[in-house]
């Protein structure tokens, strides 16, 4: 049984924003509900008002325009996983979406919820950080756009304000020749919380060298982290097994520094090597081959 609250189902963005601006007392935005409803059931949250975004159909769309991908906050994990244009360079998003929960959670849970929850283990966050995504936050009479990395404050905290609604995530389209991957390590193969995850984007140049590398790790810090040392190391070089080892070591060293002495550190310091290795090979099979 959930504790009672007032429920609102605005039929337009304006109405939603005006409710957010005017409703008194604690309020929560309801998107997919897969995290909010259990929190209500456990009594961890007891908002006076729940504002449902159900009717805001425009937030359910994925659009590609002017070189940027716009993903509405209500886009579900299933939608992301099934979105055909994400089969190519952007497949890290589809792969990450497919690793979330099980089919039921994926039909319901949304990208907006995943971002605003800001769990260190949020599956979509490393891909979005690697994609250098921004988030749009709207309020009555205004909006702001923030880089995701800046928006996330770590351990479930973000810089969203009480009256704001996150409406979309936006990122630049990757070049056509780019390849990407997402790898998640959980205790089991579905309905698992990520223990370590990694998103990798590699942009090859004309001669087969790596022109650009972007790596983002999840669940090793209060929020997803990029690995600049490993990215720099990969840049301008050709993927092969020895470069892989260098990169994996660079990732592991960065993680060791991030983890400090938390209880999971001894495990994660080592295990991240396996995750990084798999992610890099998935993004560029040449890493795995003896050339």
């Amino acid at each position: 049984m959930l504790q009672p609250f007032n429920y609102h189902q605005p039929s337009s963005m304006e109405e939603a924003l005006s409710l957010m601006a005017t409703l008194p007392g604690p309020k929560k935005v309801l998107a997919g509900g897969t995290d909010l409803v259990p929190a209500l059931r456990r009594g961890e949250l007891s908002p006076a008002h729940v504002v449902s975004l159900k009717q805001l159909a425009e937030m359910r769309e994925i659009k590609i325009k002017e070189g940027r991908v716009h993903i509405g906050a209500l886009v579900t994990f299933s939608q992301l996983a099934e979105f055909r244009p994400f089969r190519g360079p952007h497949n890290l998003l589809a792969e990450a979406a497919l690793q979330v929960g099980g089919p039921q959670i994926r039909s319901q849970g949304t990208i907006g919820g995943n971002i605003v929850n800001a769990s260190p283990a949020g599956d979509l966050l490393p891909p979005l950080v690697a994609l250098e995504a921004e988030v749009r936050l709207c309020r009555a009479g205004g909006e702001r756009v923030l880089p995701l990395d800046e928006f996330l404050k770590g351990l479930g905290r973000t810089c969203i304000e009480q009256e704001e609604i996150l409406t979309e995530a936006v990122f630049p389209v990757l070049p056509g020749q780019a390849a990407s991957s997402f790898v998640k390590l959980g205790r089991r193969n579905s309905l698992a919380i990520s223990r370590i995850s990694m998103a990798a984007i590699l942009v090859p140049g004309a001669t087969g060298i790596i022109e650009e590398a972007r790596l983002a790790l999840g669940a090793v810090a209060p929020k997803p982290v990029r690995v600049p040392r490993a990215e720099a190391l990969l840049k301008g070089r050709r993927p092969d097994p020895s470069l892989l080892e260098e990169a994996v070591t660079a990732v592991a060293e960065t993680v060791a520094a991030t983890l400090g002495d938390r209880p999971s550190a001894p495990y994660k310091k080592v295990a991240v090597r396996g995750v990084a290795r798999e992610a890099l090979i998935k993004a560029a099979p040449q890493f795995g081959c003896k050339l």
Partner: protein
Amino acid sequence: MKKRGIGVGCMFYGIGNTGMPNPAGAFLDLTDDGTVLVLTGCADIGQGSSTVLAQIAAGELGVNIEDVLVVAGDTGVSPDAGATSASRQTYISGNAVLLAARQAKEVLLEEAAGIMAAAASDLCLRDGHVWRAGEKTPLTVKEVLAACRKKGKLTLGSGWFNPETTGMDETGRGAPYATYSYATQVAEIEVDTETGKVSVLRLVAAHDVGRAINPKSVEGQIEGGCLMGIGYALLEEVKLTEGRIGNPRYAEYLLPMSLDVPEIHAIIVEEPEITGPFGAKGVGEPALIPTAAAIANAVADALGVRFYDLPITPEKILAALSAKGDGSARMGEIT
């Protein structure tokens, strides 16, 4: 790096409670139209006992299973069958139902013997007919039932069975179970030496169940047991702090799910138990028992490092691998 390993686990398991009486009773009504009602206290909790008991009654009375209705686990109408535990219900309640069926059948066969001028011991029931010396006769069960009723004879049965056991004395001597089931499982696993993750690839599970009354149901028990055993070996642990459970939710107490399932090859071995109903023993618990042992041995085979505490988690594996070489991986000492 991924390393494969193979491990073996064996077990035996006494069917029924340990060294103490644990009877089960059953009532059976062979009704006028030849259909059968079985009343049993045996709780079917999903393992399929009601189906197996229906098969046993049908088998003894020579009717179709569709003609048997089992009313189970209602103390208002059914006799005590003891607990659904100790892998005992097929063997013990199975025998109780068999005996109840036999008692009802004896009335019927005696009547049939009179009609046919034959010895009751030469007769049996099959497909709704009376058979004599292996040959079908035109006499139907329904006709015999009608003849019984005409004389005021009811075809009811009651049966109870208590496995023959003795208690254990203070040095443990005794025969605590009437029969034992046996099993051997072979596990093939793969360990990722970087993440410590163990994947069970294949399990071969050979179980001596005496006789499989319902083979598919036996396989179902074995497969389910194997998966529970995988959870025991690798995943599951109730976390306690000062008597308080820290992970009382499915989100925190993880069970294996469909994507974690290996190939499971169940092999049913039948070494009939002469005191069992149609030779049957039990399988419910044996299904789970050797799995963790086999997996632990497979992990040791893969890594050359043995684990002495369950569950074998990725953390323990990586810790042990990093300690390997400093003598932590001991082999058997030879004296």
